[in-house]
């Protein structure tokens, strides 16, 4: 795999830009897709947000100083894009955040790209009622299997705070699943 610094350098140079962008997409498309998909839940929305994320990355690569890792930076852009997308959609529909989350999970039942069983649907319902930050931390830790240090760099939050958020999220989800039974 190509070194990150080299890739960033190539992305900044006109001659190597398009080829490097191809490498960038190939390297991160699946990881970013799943991260975004778990926030927006619907495939078409995830596709939109993912494409916008890559376009933003490409347009702003000049400003990338290398203070954080490239993938952390991209995850951050992806996260912001996904959350902004949801906020815009919520505003457009004129509903509250809670209602929006409820609608999104209810739509999963009829979604052809959701093949989860009953417990997986319940898990999504449980995740939907978590506060935004706990939801992000839970998804990144539980499904993306990121380390706390990595999540800390992406969300710019202390590792201690993340551990507390994850712990609370798991407790709330377990409680929800038990209540639902």
């Amino acid at each position, binding site marked *: 795999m190509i070194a990150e610094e080299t890739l960033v350098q190539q992305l900044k140079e006109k001659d190597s830009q*398009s080829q490097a*962008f*191809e490498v960038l*997409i*190939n390297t991160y*498309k*699946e*990881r970013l*897709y*799943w991260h975004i*998909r*778990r926030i927006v*839940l619907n*495939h078409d929305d995830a*596709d939109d947000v*993912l*494409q916008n994320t*890559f*376009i933003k990355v*490409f347009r702003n690569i000049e400003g990338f100083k290398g203070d954080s890792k490239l993938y952390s930076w991209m995850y951050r852009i992806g996260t912001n894009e996904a959350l902004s997308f949801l906020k815009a959609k919520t505003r457009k529909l004129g509903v509250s955040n809670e209602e929006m989350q409820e609608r999104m999970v209810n739509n999963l039942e009829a979604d052809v*790209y*959701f*093949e*989860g*069983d009953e*417990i*997986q*649907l319940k*898990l*999504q319902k449980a995740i939907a009622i978590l*506060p*935004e*930050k706990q939801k992000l931390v839970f998804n990144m830790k*539980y*499904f*993306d*299997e990121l*380390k706390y240090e990595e999540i800390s760099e992406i969300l710019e939050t*202390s590792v*201690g*705070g993340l551990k*507390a*958020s994850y*712990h*609370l999220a*798991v407790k709330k*989800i*377990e409680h929800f*699943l*038990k209540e639902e*039974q």
Partner: protein
Amino acid sequence: MNEEHKNSGFKTPENYFEGFNDRLSERLKEDESTLPENAGLKVPEGYFDSLNEQITDKLQQTTSTKVVKLYPHRKYYLAAAAIAALFILVLGIQQFGDKELTFDSLANSDIENYLDNTDLGLSSYEIAEVVALDDIAIDNILEHELIEESIIDYLDENVDDFDELNLELDE
């Protein structure tokens, strides 16, 4: 399931994944609180194969589309507004310049009001993470007598069932 798995340097016993689903199903039956291993989400067939092309196309489209400005003179209005704002700001600084705003000049009620009405997104665990034990004024609780009325108000708001308190009648 089109899930992706990260190589985090760990390895598994041989054939671990082959029997994983069965073991997980068994476990799910045993332990009711076990969370499912995946989210049940999937993608259309071949989605990731065609994604690169779609992104490159979209990028070219956005690059080549000429942006037609809806309000061509807007920048002049903005410039005029900026100059006016700057003028007002300078006047303001001259008028109120000697009063330096510090944390102490904030009224306690304003701070309390801010904390009450703002969703800081911090749980008590997170607050405990950042506030050292020494900084928490425990003495305030231990050495100062609380007004009885405050105690009753607190209990009234926070206790659902007074029987839980096991109060003796003569207490």
